Every structure is written in C-alpha cells, then in structure tokens.
C-alpha cells in the first residue's frame, strides 16, 4: 500500500536546488536516494520526499594515487561488483557486502543512503576499518574522515552525502570482515572489521572496528595498540580478542544478551584478526 502521509514527491535537478529543500532541517522532509529504509521506517511526520537520484553521481573511479572514489548513488551491488573495489583491502568489500540485506535490496540501496542512515550496519565498520573519507554537501562541499562524521554528529545535521573515498592502501595491507546473525538474511548480532598495514616487519596501521553491539560501531583501541606493538602473532591475536571483549561495551536485547555479545566480540575479533594475519602472510 501507498506509504501513508506522503503528500509531496520532489525531484530537484541540481544539488543546490536539493539543498534548498534540505537546509532548513524540516523533520517532515526526507532525502530519498535508494529508498529501502525510508519506505518502511519513515515516521508519520514525514510528508515530503526529495528524490536526489538526478543530482548525485553513481560512478566508481580509481584515482591516480590508488584511492577509490564512490559516488553516493552507487548501489551496494555496484560497490560489491566493481573490479577495483573487489580487490581493495584484500577483498573485504565483497566479503562484507554479500551479507548486507539480500540482492533485491543491494541492487537498489545506495551507498550514500546507507552511511547516512547510520543504523545497524555491516558496511560502516568496514569503511571505518579502511579509514574512509566521506564527502557531503551542506551549502558547500565538505570532506572528512567517516569516523569524525559520526563521532562529531555531522550525520545528524542537514546535509546531502555525495560520495565516499577509500584511501590507497600500502602493498602489505590486509583486511577482513566477520559477522554473526541468526540467518543469512538478517541483521547482525555482532560484526567485526579488521585491517592491518605492515611496513617491513613493523605494524603501521591497525583498525579493529566492532559493529552491531548494538551500537553502530566501536573501535577496540587497546586491542589495536597491542597488535601495533606486538604484530599479528597468534599470542597477540588471542590477547587482542580478550582485550576487545573487555573494552567494547555490549548491550542486550531480545536477539542476544550483552553477555553473549561480549563472547562474540572476543571470538569474532580473534578470528577476524586471524584471517587478516593469514592474508598478510600471502602478501
């Protein structure tokens, strides 16, 4: 049935025109890029849709420096199937994307809409582990680390996401993603994205991002520090799992208790780091 309460459907032709609608921060207005989440969960006060499909870019391009730029209107399938994205971070993107919803949703949901939605996500931890930058328009073009976008609450202010950028990775870099859910097509009870960059024998960068705790994400900083110091050895990885369990705060609900989620933090962090270590050896 028609989504009740929607009385206006706007299709601006330029970003500036779209922004003119979005800027006042009117709660009765919603930006529509892919559509999925809004259709179901828009609160009753939403009466106006601003379809930004005509004003945003959907292309994916690899830059000269090896970074990858993803237009906000690229679908999750576009991201998953793009040949450069597919090998970036040792293939972590398709490894993760295959778990997001299902093909009927990925074929229409956009990456911009997904990160702006900022709820129970498998995508966000992976983009954070890859230290992605987000680009958005709020009267002017902005760009900042994705983590700042969430930590500073910019995702809650009026803006239009225009794209994401995945920085180039060094030669010896690997990432992995693991999730745990009741069934294949289900929200995760917990997920973990890990990445390690090596420079010679020393560890250059470590990211351990735990999602669906049920918070959107938390970094396991102590665990990251330990791997940075000791490298991804079996002992360090075991210990990192324990540290993550200790530092990542979990909540309980009808899907899983906090205690069980904490168990999963340890197990998934350890296993995910193990996969990364294995991939590093192959580099």
């Amino acid at each position, binding site marked *: *049935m*028609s*989504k*009740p*309460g*929607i*009385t*206006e*459907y706007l*299709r601006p032709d330029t970003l500036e025109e779209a922004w003119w609608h979005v800027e006042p921060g009117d709660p009765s207005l919603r930006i*529509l890029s892919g*559509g*999925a989440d809004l*259709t*179901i969960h828009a609160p009753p006060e939403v009466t106006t*849709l601003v*379809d930004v*499909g005509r004003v945003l870019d959907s292309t994916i391009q690899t830059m000269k420096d090896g970074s990858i730029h993803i237009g906000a209107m690229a679908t999750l*399938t576009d991201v998953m199937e793009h040949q450069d994205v597919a090998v970036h971070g040792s293939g972590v993107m398709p490894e993760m994307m*295959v778990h997001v*919803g*299902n*093909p*009927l*949703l990925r*074929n*229409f949901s956009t990456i911009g809409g997904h990160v702006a939605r900022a709820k129970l996500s498998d995508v966000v931890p992976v983009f954070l582990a890859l230290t992605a930058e987000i680009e958005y328009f709020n009267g002017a073009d902005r760009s900042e680390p994705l983590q700042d976008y969430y930590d500073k609450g910019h995702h809650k202010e009026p803006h239009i996401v225009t794209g994401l950028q995945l920085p180039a990775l060094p030669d010896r870099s690997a990432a992995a993603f693991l999730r745990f859910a009741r069934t*294949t*097509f289900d929200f995760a009870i917990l997920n973990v994205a890990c990445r390690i960059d090596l420079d010679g024998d020393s560890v250059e960068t470590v990211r351990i991002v735990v999602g669906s705790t049920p918070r959107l994400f938390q970094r396991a900083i102590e665990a990251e520090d330990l791997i940075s110091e000791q490298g991804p050895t079996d002992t360090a990885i075991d210990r990192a799992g324990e540290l993550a369990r200790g530092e990542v705060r979990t909540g309980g609900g009808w899907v899983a208790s906090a205690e069980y989620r904490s168990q999963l933090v340890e197990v998934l962090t350890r296993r995910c780091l193990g996969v990364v270590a294995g991939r590093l050896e192959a580099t």
Partner: protein
Amino acid sequence: MNLLLSINGGQLSTEVEAGDTLLDALRGNGYTSVKDGCANGDCGTCAVLIDGRAVASCLVFAGQAEGHEITTIEGVTGADQAYHPLQQTMLDAGGVQCGYCIPAMILTAADLLERNPSPTRDHISSYLAGNLCRCTGYVKQIDAIEMAAAILRGDDDE
C-alpha cells in the same frame, strides 16, 4: 502525479500518489504477477527487474522508477505464451508448489543468469537470499535454475 513508466518494452502513462511504491503502481495497473507478500522488503515476492537487476518493488517509490526499464514476468514470457527456459525448468524440476513466489524468483534468476551464465549451486542460493519460499525448501528451484542455465548456455542435453 503523472508518471511515464517503461514496462516490458512498452510505455505506461499512469497517475500515482506521492507515496505510492512501484509495487502499488504495478499492481494498480494490472501487473498482478508482482505479489505483495509483506510490504516490508523482506519476502521478495514483489521483485521486478529495473534495468535488468532484480529489485524489491515495495521498497522503490514509483517516482524513482521513471526513466528506467521495468520488467515483470509478463516481459519474460515469450510470444504466444512460449516459456522462457526458466519457466520450463521450474515445472520440469518440480520447483513450483503454491507458485506465489515463482514470478519473482524467475526474474531474480534471470538477472543472475544474465550476469553469471554458469553459477554454482552456492551462487544461486546466494542470489536467491531475498526470495523467500515457504513451500519447497528451494532444492528443486535451484535444480531448475541450473537446468535453465545449461539451456541458455546452449549446452548439449547430456
């Protein structure tokens, strides 16, 4: 608002409400092969092809579909009601029980086979993850898609 939708190669001019989904617009114009099983993007019975890709039409606003090519099962069935290989093999393999999920499943499979002519059973399962079926256990539907893939590739019978 008035929309011009491209459906199965033809053009449809239709009046829709701002909040109408593509599912509403299609069923309202007689495309009842597109089912409304949950209106929540969870069951997959409303899947259609948009520019060749299978999409849950209950999660797409009608306005978003303008300018794109929409395909329903009517657009897959051949002239004189000749079966598409997927329709034939669904029946050959015994993949149809109540049939409510079948048009959407055939469309999703058609999208898959267009992109991957030789999918493994795991590929097929993975691509059907959003097409729920409560009757079958999926075994014979996956059989059917494998059989159709072989026909579309032009493999010999054996």
